[in-house]
């Protein structure tokens, strides 16, 4: 129902857009000079908010920043369906002074920007007298400025990102915390009981799974009902619980990044994994496991709740998730990471992804209704210091962070026990209650000189660097900050959804029913080119990458 409504809404928006475009640009001209008007000191802002938050009116961090900037903000906050509601308001011409935390796509930004609803922020973000902090950051990191600049050379939103990568631990190379999004794991206690070692090749894993099944390990070890053992489970092509890590023995890990199955090779060539021979082999190979009942029959249909339920009950021998504890609950101690496997010919290729630490500019835009953008942007400039953004992200010093810094001069966050004792809620809930959603740019350097990263994130980065990266030979990845022109965005909009859906559907069909014959395989590849615009999509990503590489 909600989907229907949003679809209907999208259709309506499209119509409204067409008529709006016809009217031409009737907003104030976006000149290159900042508007120096400083009359307006009271602003209305629509913002997203966590459902757990009590509102922004009493937020000490925001209020202090407002006082510094000499302005007052009337917050109108919404915790869900924000995009829908704001779209209605903007199209209806009922403009607040700024829109915060909607998460506009570049496509939306360009649309509202060219239509004159959002103003160009370029002259402000480069002006050190209005935005000293942000302009310094953009000076230091030109790639951030490049990532938020639209193809018409204008900036319609302030930058936001959470650069929680390996760089934040002091490592020389910065890789996203999501570089390898699925960690595979296996029940070591079951292996020990059966006298098996942790598998290193796909064939060894097959033997282990067969043994799990034959001996009904969940029944034997955990006293579950007879026959409830599921040797291996995952969610087909899901993000952190997909099967893609298991394709490594066949030369690919086709996890979804900027586009499903897209990969930048070592030689900087843009290719699609879903037409490679390894991909075909992998699907054909794993179909046998599926047919033999080694793989959960529900992999195509289950949702993450059902998956969590199965794993927590101790039914599953091999699974994927982004850590062991959360998935395996009470049985977590029995599981160990299952390293990427070697194929029949010794192949083991794990590719890494860049998504996750991307800079986006959809979190704050100023509308043409705002008379004095400079006043408002002085307020937002204060978001761009480590200490402030930390408090906006997690909670004020004195609430989420201890007042005293530690020996390294960094802020220390409250522990879960302390949070429960002092505030009666978990640290996560405490964060949600005091978090402010908006243009928060958390640079990786803040994790080494302002505050400590969360334990579990650190743990994951540690796992990545010390375990999973051992299996990565080539660290090339398609940069997520590539900027696309409007016509490229249109092309992607036209082809990508159908292309991705078709590939995924076909992959699932072959996985379930057996791999393609030669004729089917050729027909599939031809179809992707003829009907699904694979070459056009490749062209877009290739051109965008070439421009990106040239700029570096």
């Amino acid at each position, binding site marked *: 129902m909600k989907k229907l409504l949003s679809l209907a809404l999208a259709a309506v928006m499209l119509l409204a857009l067409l008529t709006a475009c016809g009217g031409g640009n009737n907003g104030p001209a976006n000149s290159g000079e900042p508007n120096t008007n400083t009359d307006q000191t009271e602003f209305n802002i629509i913002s997203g908010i966590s459902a757990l938050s009590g509102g922004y009116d009493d937020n000490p961090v925001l209020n202090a920043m407002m006082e510094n900037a000499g302005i007052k903000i009337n917050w109108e906050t919404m915790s869900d*369906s924000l995009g829908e509601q704001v779209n209605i308001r903007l199209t209806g011409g009922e403009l607040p002074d700024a829109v915060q935390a909607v998460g506009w796509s570049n496509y939306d930004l360009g649309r509202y920007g060219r239509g004159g609803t959002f103003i160009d922020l370029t002259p402000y973000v480069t002006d050190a007298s209005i935005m000293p902090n942000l302009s310094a950051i953009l000076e230091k990191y030109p790639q951030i400025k490049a990532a938020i600049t639209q193809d018409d050379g204008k900036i319609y939103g302030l930058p936001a990102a959470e650069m929680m990568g390996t760089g934040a631990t002091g490592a020389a190379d910065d890789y996203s915390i999501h570089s390898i999004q699925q960690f595979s794991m296996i029940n070591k206690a079951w292996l020990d009981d059966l006298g098996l070692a942790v598998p290193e090749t796909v064939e060894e894993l097959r033997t282990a799974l067969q043994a799990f099944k034959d001996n009904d390990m969940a029944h034997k070890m955990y006293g579950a009902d007879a026959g409830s053992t599921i040797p291996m489970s995952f969610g087909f092509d899901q993000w952190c619980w997909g099967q893609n890590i298991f394709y490594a023995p066949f030369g690919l890990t086709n996890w979804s990044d900027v586009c499903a199955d897209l990969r930048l090779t070592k030689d900087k060539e843009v290719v699609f994994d879903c037409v490679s021979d390894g991909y075909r082999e992998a699907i054909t190979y794993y179909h046998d496991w599926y047919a033999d009942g080694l793989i959960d029959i529900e992999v195509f249909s289950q949702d993450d*709740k059902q998956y969590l339920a199965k794993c927590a009950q101790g039914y599953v021998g091999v699974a994927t998730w982004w850590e062991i504890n959360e998935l395996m609950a009470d049985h977590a101690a029995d599981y160990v990471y299952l390293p990427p496997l070697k194929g029949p010919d010794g192949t083991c290729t794990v590719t890494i992804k860049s998504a996750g630490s991307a800079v986006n500019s959809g979190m704050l835009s100023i509308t043409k209704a705002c008379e004095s953008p400079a006043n408002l942007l002085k307020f937002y400039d204060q978001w761009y210091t480590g200490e402030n953004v930390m408090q906006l992200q997690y909670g004020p010093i004195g609430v989420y962070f201890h007042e005293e810094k530690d020996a390294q001069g960094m802020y220390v966050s409250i522990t879960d026990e302390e949070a429960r004792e002092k505030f009666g809620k978990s640290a*996560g809930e405490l964060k949600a209650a005091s978090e402010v959603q908006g243009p928060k740019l958390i640079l990786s350097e803040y994790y080494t000189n302002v505050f400590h990263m969360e334990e579990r994130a650190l743990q994951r980065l540690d796992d990545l660097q010390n375990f999973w990266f051992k299996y990565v030979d080539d660290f090339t990845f398609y940069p997520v900050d590539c900027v696309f022109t409007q016509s490229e965005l249109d092309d992607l909009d036209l082809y990508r959804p159908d292309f991705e859906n078709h590939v995924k559907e076909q992959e699932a069909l072959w996985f379930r029913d057996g791999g393609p014959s030669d004729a089917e395989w050729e027909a599939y590849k031809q179809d992707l080119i003829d009907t699904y615009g694979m070459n056009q999509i490749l062209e877009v990503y290739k051109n965008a990458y070439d421009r990106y590489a040239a700029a570096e």
Partner: protein
Amino acid sequence: MRKSKSTGMSDKASDIILVTICTVVLLIVAYPLYYVLIASFSDPYDVYAGKTFLLPSGFTFDGYKAVFADPKIVSGFLNSVKYTVIGTIFSVVMLYITAYPLAQKDLPGRKWISLFFVFTMYFGGGLVPTYLVVRDTGLMGSMWALFLPGGVGVGNMIIVRNYFQNSIPHDLVEASEIDGCSKFRTFLSVVIPLSMPILAVQAVFAMVAYWNDWFTAMIYLGGKGEPLPLVLRGILMKSSAASEQASMISGGYAELNKQTELIKFCSMIVAAVPMLIAYPYVQKYFEKGFMAGAVKG
């Protein structure tokens, strides 16, 4: 109207078959509802693992506790009752006062007025224009924004009009006029009592629609006077926000996620029960209307 003595055996057989079929149909219809009911008392992971079939597994009131702990639940319930009662009366009245005139063959311009109504079935302004109209007429934040924009359900209006035309005997209306009824009195004392079945159907349609409506309330009420579905939705959002946060910070996603799932089942029950209770009271009118066998010959 056969009496059942003579062919006892075959009657018994058909009874058995009919009762069996009816029971099976009843089970098919009722089981999903029953399933949600027991799921709302069970450990959600047991539910997903298929451990609940006839009895709850890992009996718990946690879901209901979480739902009823929210102070807005009472006001949400009262608001929903208010919107449903007023909305139902309003929409039935609107149906009657549009459908009855259109059912009169001597109404001038009847064809064009009908066309005008039907036109709106096929061409709607869409959400944004409707929003603009509601805003510019000053209805924002008022409960009338829920009723007025879609006041006349044209499809239903046509059904009611046809009912007036076809199922209310013209002779009877004539007879009442001969007996001295004014047009208005005829409408009140003859047409309305005779059209009870269709009235009941339309009332049920309207009642269910207003009871379940959350989208219009979300768009137009601006957070004031939230009806029950919006309140329940809010509770669910909070719970799922908490588990997402747990996933990122403190751990325990799986545990909080359970709570969210449990709340889903509980809110289904909380939202459905009042309708289930109200339904039988309306249902009796479905038959009542048919008793008016006033035409003779």
